[in-house]
């Protein structure tokens, strides 16, 4: 039997020591009518058989690596250096649990401490936690943090409609029992300010927003904070290689999806929610924090700290229920940020920016296409198309092996026939040329 080391002799000796004649007798507390059901599952495979089956399932998919991909919308095809998988494939890291016993978990703890530092640098914030499940749940936890900062006295959350549609939905799911009012603007950032009042716990915007656009957020931060609300920014960490960090605009909480930091696409997960705050909010933070200390010989070491905020100590009064987070993904992100470093992060961001602008200019020049240019954009841009986006995407896929952009009409009725195209450092110029040629042909 795979993974079970017991020989028949071992089993007999152990049962004898316990004083029962058979394995079955260990389960007499289980109601007899429900005991030992006959599970209707396929029979066991050998490792060869399992590999064949899984490989055939993997082969039944068309991947982004097989053609050109211009799809983003919250999950991005970015370069993953080989060192990332080399590090997270080490069993000492991936077969460990949450580091409850720090003396034998210094590897995980130091790596997370370094991760927290790098996230602080990237976002321009004071404190980062050890991670959340993904960008969407980190956003929802930011709302709960803001509610806790206001001691449940403020019941309104203002969220820009250009925050990722799924993140807005997750905020609503998380808070459905808390009696909050969640208000979305309809006008874009200009309209957001008018919705703020002294019942508002927080204002949430995305940077760059779901359409790829960015702007100076100082005025929004000031407007939110003038009413006492927290200013929460959902940021793309790759964009922060080039753009001013939200901390410089005065953000209280910066969260986001860390998938771009070396995690690959993986059909939507596991990803990484990052979560950073200004120092004054540190005791309201959800999730694990790693802190520096010393051992009995005075040597530097690291431990989980401020655990009195957490569920295993504070139970129903905890700041969150989170326990297991994304430890290995945080490690991957740290390796990625260390590998690219100061210069590499900037270069990746610049490659995205220049290639996206090159693609946008070329597509804008095509008959019937028009790029939304009301604000600067980073690696994604919205483009109005002369045909329905789903029809164009069908033609791109079948005729050209190109995975096209995201259909914005699904979420924004006023953006029907608008595609959200994404261009990263992974898209060669030839791919962009091919996309332009294909778009011209499938719409002429």
């Amino acid at each position, binding site marked *: 039997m*795979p993974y079970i*080391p017991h020989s028949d002799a*071992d089993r007999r000796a152990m049962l004898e020591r*316990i004083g*029962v004649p058979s394995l079955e007798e260990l389960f007499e*507390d289980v*109601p007899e009518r*429900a005991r*030992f059901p006959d*599970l209707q599952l396929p*029979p066991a*495979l050998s490792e060869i058989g*399992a590999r064949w089956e*899984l490989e055939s399932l*993997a082969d039944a998919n*068309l*991947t982004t690596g097989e053609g050109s991909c211009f799809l983003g919308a919250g999950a991005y095809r970015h370069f993953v*250096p080989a*060192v990332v998988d080399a590090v997270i494939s*080490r*069993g*000492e*890291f*991936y*077969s*460990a649990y*949450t580091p*409850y*016993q*720090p003396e*034998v978990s210094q*590897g995980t703890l*130091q790596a997370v401490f370094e991760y927290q*530092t790098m996230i602080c640098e990237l976002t321009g914030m004071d*404190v980062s936690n050890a991670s959340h499940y*993904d960008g969407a*749940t980190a956003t929802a936890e930011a709302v709960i943090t803001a509610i806790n900062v206001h001691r449940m006295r403020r019941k309104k959350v203002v969220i820009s409609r250009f925050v990722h549609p799924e993140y807005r939905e997750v905020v609503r799911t*998380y808070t459905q*029992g808390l009696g909050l009012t969640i208000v979305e603007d309809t006008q874009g950032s200009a309209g957001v300010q008018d919705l703020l009042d002294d019942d508002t716990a927080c204002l949430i915007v995305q940077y760059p927003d779901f359409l790829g656009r960015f702007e100076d957020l100082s005025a929004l931060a000031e407007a939110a904070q003038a009413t006492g609300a927290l200013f929460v920014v959902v940021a793309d960490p790759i964009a922060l290689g080039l753009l*001013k960090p939200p901390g410089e605009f005065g953000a209280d909480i910066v969260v986001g999806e860390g998938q771009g930091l070396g995690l690959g696409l*993986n059909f939507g997960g*596991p990803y990484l929610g990052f979560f950073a705050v200004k120092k004054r909010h540190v005791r309201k933070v959800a999730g694990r924090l790693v802190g520096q*200390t*010393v051992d*009995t010989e005075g040597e*530097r070491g690291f431990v989980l*700290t401020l655990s009195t905020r*957490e*569920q*295993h100590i*504070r139970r129903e009064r905890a700041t969150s229920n989170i326990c297991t*987070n994304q*430890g*290995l993904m945080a490690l991957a992100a740290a390796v990625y940020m*260390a*590998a690219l470093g100061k*210069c590499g992060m900037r270069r990746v961001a610049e490659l995205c920016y*220049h290639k996206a602008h090159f693609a946008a200019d070329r597509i804008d020049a095509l008959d019937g296409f028009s790029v939304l240019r009301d604000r600067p954009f980073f690696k994604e841009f919205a483009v109005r198309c002369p045909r329905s986006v789903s029809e164009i995407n*069908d033609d791109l896929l079948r005729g050209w092996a190109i995975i096209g952009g995201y259909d914005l009409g699904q979420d924004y009725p006023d953006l029907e026939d608008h595609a959200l195209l994404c261009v990263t450092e992974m898209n060669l*110029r030839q791919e962009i040329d091919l996309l332009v040629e294909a778009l011209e042909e499938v719409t002429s």
Partner: protein
Amino acid sequence: MSRPLIFEISRPGRCAASLPERDVPAAELPEGLVREELPLPEVSEGELIRHYTHLSQINYGVDTGFYPLGSCTMKYNPKINEAMARLPGFTGLHPYQDEETIQGALFLMYSLQEFLEEIGGFAGVSLQPAAGAHGELTGVLMMRAYHESRGDGTRDVMLIPDSAHGTNPASTSMSGMQVVEIPSDERGDVDLGALKAACEEHSDRLVGMMLTNPNTLGLFEKQVEEICAVVHEHGGLMYGDGANMNALLGVARPGDLGFDVLHFNLHKTFSTPHGGGGPGSGPVGASPTLVDFLPGPMVKIDPERSEEDLPFFSLWMPPQTIGRVKAFYGHFGVIVKAYTYIRMLGPRGLRRTAEHAVLNANYLKERLKETYPLPYDRTCMHEFVLAGPPQDVQDTDVHTMDVAKRLIDYGFHPPTVYFPLIVEEALMIEPTETESQETLDAFADAMLDIVAEARDDPDLLHEAPFHAPARRLDEVKAARDLILRWQPGDDEP
């Protein structure tokens, strides 16, 4: 020996990544919005790998040795799982691709939904929740939505045993509800009298009950069917915390026992591993009563797009869904590992897994119970809880934490300590099925030797560990000083 941080080995101008030259014209950068500095480390690839290899060498995992951390099911993590999750046909998939291009991935998700339905005895399973606590939040929100859909939305009381994981009460209050704690009886089971009284008292307000079975003492709740019946009589629903499902694989199905909703921990029971604190995966199973409230998207067979012998798989939302609980569809990479694990074991292997997990726990319990006090002396399931070292040792001020730290010197990861809260000085030991009798004997011998050492020289235990990457660490100082990041100019101590 102090180890440098990655920032301390950084030197200006180094880089471990090789990036392509720009092959398009430069666009103008946005004025006033470009950042001035980004102080990330600058290291070469060789230095980077040595740094993280050193860090891995001061970390203890299941691949290193025995890890009997109670409630966490630290079993061996098969390497085939890792290899399958890394197949390019899975890792290269974008979550928003056209459904026609992701049929292999959707088939795998659909199959795992079905496997977990069968293993748990449920009508439906959603793979979306990201971890155990996330599954709990999902289940509690489903219970709330169910009552609300029946015009019964004022119900707000959740019953939770005093032996429960802290995540249970935390998930309940995150959902805007009140917790009423139910005591345990002298056998370690839920106190049925107290449960009945609480159900009577809160009958109109009862959302339901959250129950871990086997409970956190490692004991199967013998009265589980009666508990479910009492809660149901008062209009409540039964939530199952599936953290301990490793004891029930092929042994009993929670759905058959009366649970309405339960989360699985793929990173525990299905060995996907823990990753040093995630990623986990917490799929939620539901009875016919709650199946329409599951979060999505889930995967179904779309009859309109299917052909004979060729089903077409689609993403869909259940009709009364609580909504999405995270972006996209769950931790797909973890889902691939759990699927592989179940295919490798088959139904017989799953049952053998539970049987040997329980065999190992009972064997270790028998070897230790004459020396270490065992407050609930019954046949246990996959784990058991001791009440610290013997009284004469505790009288010399040697406690559970000291035993735990001394175990490190013997080369073992310590058990879970000081949980569950209802056992003072708790040592919660879960050996799992993948450990051999020799390993269990070596651990038991160490536990017995440590008691002898404590009687001889209590300070030896107070000062342990001696042979670990760090000596005992000052947690009070960490909370007081609150150094949560490295600052330029910080010196090595």
